[in-house]
């Protein structure tokens, strides 16, 4: 349960960049999974891939639902991120550098288009294989590769703009 929650919450948090939103979405995901458990058939990737797929579909729905709000409330949308950056900067000792990097990567991710963002998150933050991502996104392998590639290049450019030096 903890492993699955971590996977779902991690994906939601990295996609939305907001802890509260990620928490609500995670609950929604598990509620949906619980209700549709009876119709679950063992797929090629097994339960984790199915769970990721359900999460991703909900995230896309949520993104479409809140698109208009984001456009009108762009300043309010920045608020949680700013609060998080502030709280992160107070994290003690050696975690500071990691937390700052995490914040910058998160900020860069939020500037990617949702298609590229989800592909990069699934590959580099969730550690999924290409065939698993293909199954989750329901797109051909060529599209998966292309999205991951474009997403990474775009992200690297944003990180450079943010002043993050190559390590």
């Amino acid at each position: 349960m903890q492993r699955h929650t971590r996977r779902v919450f991690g994906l939601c948090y990295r996609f939305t960049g907001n802890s509260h939103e990620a928490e609500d979405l995670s609950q929604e995901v598990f509620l949906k999974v619980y209700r549709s458990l009876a119709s679950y058939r063992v797929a090629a990737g097994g339960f984790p891939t199915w769970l990721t797929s359900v999460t991703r579909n909900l995230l896309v729905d949520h993104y479409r639902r809140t698109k208009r709000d984001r456009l009108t409330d762009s300043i309010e949308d920045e608020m949680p991120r700013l609060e998080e950056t502030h709280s992160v900067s107070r994290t003690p000792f050696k975690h500071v550098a990691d937390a700052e990097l995490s914040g910058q990567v998160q900020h860069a991710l939020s500037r990617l288009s949702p298609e590229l963002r989800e592909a990069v998150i699934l590959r580099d933050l969730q550690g999924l294989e290409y065939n698993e991502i293909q199954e989750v996104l329901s797109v051909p392998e060529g599209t998966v590769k292309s999205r991951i590639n474009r997403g990474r290049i775009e992200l690297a450019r944003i990180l450079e703009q943010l002043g993050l030096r190559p390590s």
Partner: protein
Amino acid sequence: MAWTCEQTEERLSDYLDNLLDPADITALNRHADGCAECTRLIDQVGSAVRQMRSLAPVEVPPNLITAILDQTIGPRPEKKGWRSWFSWADFVAHPKFAMGALTCAVTLVILGYAAGLSPAKIKRGDLAPSNMYRAVNRQFHLTYGRTLKYVNDLKVVYEIQSKLRPVESPAREREREEAPASPQEKSQKDSHPGHTSTLEAHLFAYDAMHAPTRSQR
């Protein structure tokens, strides 16, 4: 044959994920050697991927799992009335606790057998509180008495040993320090101390009597 900038950018992720053939890697490297822009891009993207992969997993809020369980299987039934008083003791019903309790019980039974207790020997009357108290009291006094006797015996033995050891005069000690004797000579000296006092004469006789035993040791 070297690649173009477009080809390099297009296959960059395959290169970073080690999915390129050796021939493709050579072609990419050949292009990158002569193109500063692509070398920079490879470094930048490689660094971004490394940084993303180095991030620690996101911490799950502590109440999230409870909230999910409440939403799906529903809140756990709360105990009402007198049952709620014993809710702190719920851990007793846990398999780990039961296993621990069982292990303790088995250990106690083994220790009981080792101490001579056997369920077959216990009669019904022995379980009466007054009889149990009497038995424990008796056992305690017996153990105390035995310990006391043992300590007293030890005391007597030490007293005898200290009396049997001859008292050495300061002059003789000095003599020994000047010319340290070999263990054999020492034992000879010990067996013939040459003292004239009554006590020492007595001790000399005792030593002589036990000399063969000592030498055997």
